[in-house]
């Protein structure tokens, strides 16, 4: 197992995980959900979260978890189901302010470090399980993951970090992930902000193959949402850290603007103001398109450049 790590950011959680561990399964939303990270050999880390408002939520959930483990072992009827009985360990020396956690270690057909962490600021209760193959427990890896674990953003205005599959960007904390789709060479995330704000972040790769037969300009125009008509001459060209960025703004007028404020769904997107940018990130060999829709052009323009920083997107 390599010692290199990266910051995994998902639904306001942030933690450092070994590089080969990547998200393989997602469920739920900010209030209740599940995410699992795998490496090539199987599951490595599980996070399951929900809201809990009781002060003793962490202790109760932790005791219930251990009780459940022992009950499951008894049901299996094998005397030696546990090679090492579940036992609380002081793996994390100090949890960050506002967070409380308890950690247990046990060994059966797999080795596992489990933790229950409660955040008093956002009232989220999170169960983490770091999984290892039998007799391959690496306490240092588990400690590093748990010590780096952070819930919620520092303040209401602080952006939340989304970091996975070698992409990383920041979104204002009030924005929520509405949809996502990840596939080989393609990633799409849709965020909803306050009011009518909506942002689509899309990434394709490898750019080297996609741009073999066409220019960045032709490719970008081909990726625009249905109903958006822009000529090549209307595109603005800027350079950010050596990468050419193509962009344009659309301000609906007259009847379309009124309808945009009233309608919902796909029709609304056609009638809202749009700020769009597309670029080829040479360092990661990927192509990006970020579309931000808003009730007015000013709203959409401001949201985009605060929400999605090209420099941040390049990192990782």
């Amino acid at each position, binding site marked *: 197992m390599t010692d290199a790590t990266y910051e995994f950011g998902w639904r306001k959680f942030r933690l450092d995980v070994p590089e080969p561990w990547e998200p393989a399964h997602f469920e739920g939303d900010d209030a209740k959900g599940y995410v699992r990270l795998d490496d090539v050999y199987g599951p490595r880390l599980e996070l399951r979260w929900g809201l809990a408002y009781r002060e003793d939520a962490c202790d109760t959930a932790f005791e219930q978890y251990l009780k459940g483990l022992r009950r499951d072992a008894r049901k299996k009827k094998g005397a030696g189901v546990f090679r090492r009985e579940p036992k609380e360990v002081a793996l994390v020396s100090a949890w960050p302010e506002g967070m409380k956690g308890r950690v247990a270690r046990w060994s059966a057909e797999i080795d596992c470090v489990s933790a229950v962490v409660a955040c008093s600021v956002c009232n989220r209760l999170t169960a983490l399980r770091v999984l290892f193959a039998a007799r391959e427990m690496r306490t240092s890896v588990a400690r590093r993951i748990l010590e780096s674990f952070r819930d919620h953003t520092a303040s209401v205005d602080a952006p939340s970090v989304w970091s996975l*599959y070698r992409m990383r960007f920041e979104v204002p904390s009030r924005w929520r992930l509405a949809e996502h789709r990840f596939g*080989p060479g393609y990633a799409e995330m849709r965020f909803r902000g306050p009011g009518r704000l909506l942002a689509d972040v899309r990434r394709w790769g*490898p750019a*080297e*193959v996609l741009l073999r037969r066409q220019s960045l300009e032709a490719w970008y125009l081909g990726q625009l949402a249905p109903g958006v008509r822009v000529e090549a001459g209307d595109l603005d060209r800027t350079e950010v850290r050596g990468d050419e960025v193509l962009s344009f703004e659309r301000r609906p007028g007259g009847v379309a603007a009124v309808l945009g404020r009233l309608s919902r769904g796909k029709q609304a997107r056609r009638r809202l103001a749009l700020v769009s940018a597309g670029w080829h990130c040479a360092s990661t*060999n990927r192509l990006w398109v970020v579309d931000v829709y808003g009730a007015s052009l000013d709203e959409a323009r401001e949201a985009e450049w605060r929400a999605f920083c090209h420099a941040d997107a390049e990192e990782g």
Partner: protein
Amino acid sequence: MFGWIRGSKKAEAVDRATSLATRPVRNRLVKWETTEEGAVLHVPLKKMGRAKGFAAFRPAPESKDIVLDEIGGGLWARCDGEHTTADLLGWMRDRWQFSYREAEQGLTHYLRTLAKRGLVAFALPEGSGARRHGEA
């Protein structure tokens, strides 16, 4: 119909470590050439019975061509029985900067498609104990 009498066997599942150690092997009947954009496979077609009507005037093609892009072509070239599936994953990550998950998803889909069409088979590592079957 009466498979239950014989007790028909399902193919044994191959664990993840074994599937990473399998070596994809190209079908030798498929001729192929590399191009600037990737590779072209010439897949021989089954010979049909005597053609009727107007079809009799038009000779049936002996093969059909499948065009692969650079990534597909590179993978095809490495399906030589020497490279393991893990090697192919490594190549996708190093050459094309795919993440682990992206590479695994893409490669699994690609090899499964090739296997369904009978274009590749998989050599299991010695001593794996699993039966040969068409998919990784």
